[in-house]
């Protein structure tokens, strides 16, 4: 009983065992007297042990906690701050069995516990193709060559003296939600949508560097970005995109990039899948043809029902997901809930998000929280009172081009079920009478 929450009438659903199946049925039926009785028993025990008189109320209030009666810890004890010990569950994690070797793998961001739109840098998802390195920035160089008047080399000193900009953008792996193309496969939003993050990036526009090298705009059609890691990750980017809003970035959320995110230099390609945001960026080449590199000719190609593969699929289309409540979670109680989630589009701003609690029959428009930025995560919220009956929660985003996030049926009608990449279908979470939320797909 010591695990019981001390607030009367508040239920902590507990499959671990202090509620019997009968108790759970009572809760579902709205009969909660047994809990109130349990609370009285618990507070009586407290009164017996530490208070002379049986004061009535919450022990968390009545018994002054240690931190209210003792001296706290000094400044700069932790020169680089870390989250509370109570937040240890929210961390990036691998999906067991997805890959065989951790140097070419993925870790997913814990979207189920995050707020707002910014991803703390330590929780940013990871995808490495041949392991990560912590590169000495004093020895890092960026080269620009190809169809330019002069191939040039820049040090980090050079780049960081240039006129920089700071912009908030989402990054999503092209394979995000890829395990769900055919059927439901993973339990929580961390694994279904967690190859998604959003940061404020600081850097110099790639167009400024291309201009500095004297790009031959008559012949140039594509640029090629190459990393300095063992895989020397390479991707082709069309010139119109390269000249649009692409950044060569060193800053992330007010500090330098984290090593796992490309320290000291990475490409930021707003709206485009993460693999193109080449980390540990060492070289940009300007050319007149695409390169068909390994990660645009063997991987990151989308298999269609007719047996062809779409090559150079890059854009991340409009998509959204409810993060609270979401798969693997349990609602504490019936009554008021704030349904909260994320929406984003590689084509621009999110214009609207609708939420359904009945599996898509009826929809209500959610509130978009500011800021609503182009090619950035947008947080949406909507009030909801759960009456205890089963529900299926969905969100549907619409971007500024008018594009409406598709259903699974619509997406599969065009692209089949064998693709791995660019799954932006509407996500469904089933809420059972017990308060348990699970991952489902509906037609």
């Amino acid at each position, binding site marked *: 009983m010591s695990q019981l929450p001390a607030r009367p009438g508040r239920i902590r659903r507990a499959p671990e065992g202090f509620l019997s199946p009968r108790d759970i049925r009572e809760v579902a039926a709205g009969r909660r007297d047994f809990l109130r009785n349990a609370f009285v028993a618990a507070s009586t025990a407290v009164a017996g042990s530490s208070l002379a008189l049986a004061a009535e109320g919450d022990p968390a209030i009545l018994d002054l906690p240690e931190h209210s009666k003792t001296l706290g810890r000094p400044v700069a004890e932790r020169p680089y701050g870390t989250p509370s010990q109570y937040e240890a569950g929210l961390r990036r994690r691998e999906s067991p*069995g997805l890959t065989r070797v951790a140097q070419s793998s993925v870790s997913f961001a814990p979207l189920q516990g995050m707020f707002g739109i910014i991803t703390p840098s330590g929780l940013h998802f990871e995808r490495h193709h041949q392991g990560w390195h912590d590169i000495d920035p004093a020895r890092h160089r960026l080269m620009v060559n190809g169809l330019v008047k002069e191939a040039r080399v820049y040090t980090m000193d050079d780049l960081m003296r240039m*006129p920089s900009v700071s912009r908030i953008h989402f990054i999503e792996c092209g394979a995000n939600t890829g395990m769900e193309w055919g059927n439901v496969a993973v339990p*929580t939003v961390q694994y279904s949508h967690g190859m998604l993050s959003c940061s404020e990036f600081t850097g110099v526009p790639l167009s400024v560097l291309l201009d500095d090298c004297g790009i031959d705009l008559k012949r140039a059609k594509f640029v090629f970005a190459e990393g300095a890691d063992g895989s020397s990750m390479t991707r082709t980017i069309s010139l119109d995109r390269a000249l649009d809003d692409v950044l060569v970035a060193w800053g992330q959320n007010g500090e330098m990039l984290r090593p796992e995110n490309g320290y000291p230099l990475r490409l930021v390609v707003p709206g485009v899948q993460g693999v193109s945001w080449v980390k540990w960026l060492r070289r940009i080449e300007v050319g007149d043809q695409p390169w068909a590199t390994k990660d645009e000719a063997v991987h990151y190609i989308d298999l269609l029902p007719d047996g062809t593969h779409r090559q150079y699929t890059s854009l991340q289309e409009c998509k959204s997901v409810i993060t609270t409540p979401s798969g693997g979670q*349990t609602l*504490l109680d019936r009554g008021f809930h*704030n349904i909260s989630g994320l929406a984003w589009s590689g084509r621009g701003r999110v214009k609207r998000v609708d939420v359904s609690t009945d599996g898509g029959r009826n929809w209500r428009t959610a509130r978009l929280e500011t800021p609503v930025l182009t090619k950035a995560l947008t947080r949406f919220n909507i009030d909801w009172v759960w009456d205890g009956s089963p529900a299926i929660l969905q969100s549907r985003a619409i971007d500024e081009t008018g*594009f409406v996030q598709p259903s699974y049926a619509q997406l599969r009608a065009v692209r089949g079920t064998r693709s791995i990449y660019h799954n932006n279908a509407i996500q469904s979470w089933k809420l059972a009478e017990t308060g348990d939320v699970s991952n*489902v797909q509906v037609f």
Partner: protein
Amino acid sequence: MSRFSELLLSAVLLCGSPGAAEAAGHFPNLGRAATPDEVKAWDIDVRPDFKGLPPGSGTVAHGADVWEAKCASCHGTFGESNEVFTPLVGGTTKEDIETGRVGAYIRGDAPQRTTLMKVATVSTLWDYINRAMPWNAPKSLTHDEVYAVLAYILNLGDIVPADFTLSDKNIADVQKRLPNRNGMTTKHGLWDIKGKPDTKNVACMKNCTSHVTLASSLPEYARDAHGDLAEQNRKVGAVRGQHTGGDGDAVATVNPGVALMKSQGCSGCHGIGNGIVGPAFRDVAKRYKNDKDAESRLVGHVKNGSGGNWGDIAMPAQTQVSDADVTALIRWILSGSPEN
């Protein structure tokens, strides 16, 4: 207007209208011209039209030798292995080589997509082997070795004969035999910046469907396959995580030996129960079970490197690992590599 943007603007004005090849170096004292040797050192990419391909050649037979020594431990002797990475070879036919379309996709009977079933450009393979292979020593192959290894892979797929010598002179002919060379399309809306979407949902608000059918639910084994979800959620707030079975929470119960092994990069070549480039840790423990000197000998192998004990690939000396860490790692390995 900031000082910087004024500087930028004047720089743009100085070098004339855009559209023509412009002068370079607009920021006084920022950046410099690359030397030809520097460009040569880094500009290693090879395009589908073979721009960038260095001259050279290699035989299938030589490729087989290099393969056995440096590639087979991950990819299998015949490029068929699915143990570490997805298979390179398999699933293509003579007919595919003639048509340039992999029939298995069209028939829908491909159990798994291999590299040779996917790749449409032979330059891709040359470029990637050259820049990123072998796994634990990228960029260490000579150009001729890259040609040889590629010739070996192509022979495994019956794209070139066993007595073939692949070179910069004949690689364009090989391109004409790639099984999936006609299997790619760029006609879609996700490439061009103004590309058109291929789905068209409508934002209906009321009575949008008469009935909702559950098409797929999470299988019980999948619910339990990701550890204890209660430990992956906050302990306060609107919701709690569900307690799920599985093998417990990997992060909460991880053995310090596992953490040390991963942080020192050992997992790039060794698995706990499976070999990758090097042997599985548990196989090492088995072999040295009754050897009293095992600890000191294996400490030496890690610090100084060793070879010939488990195959052709030598283990490089791991001089970056401290003595204390090496000893801790070896003790953990010899104790059976407990995971928690």
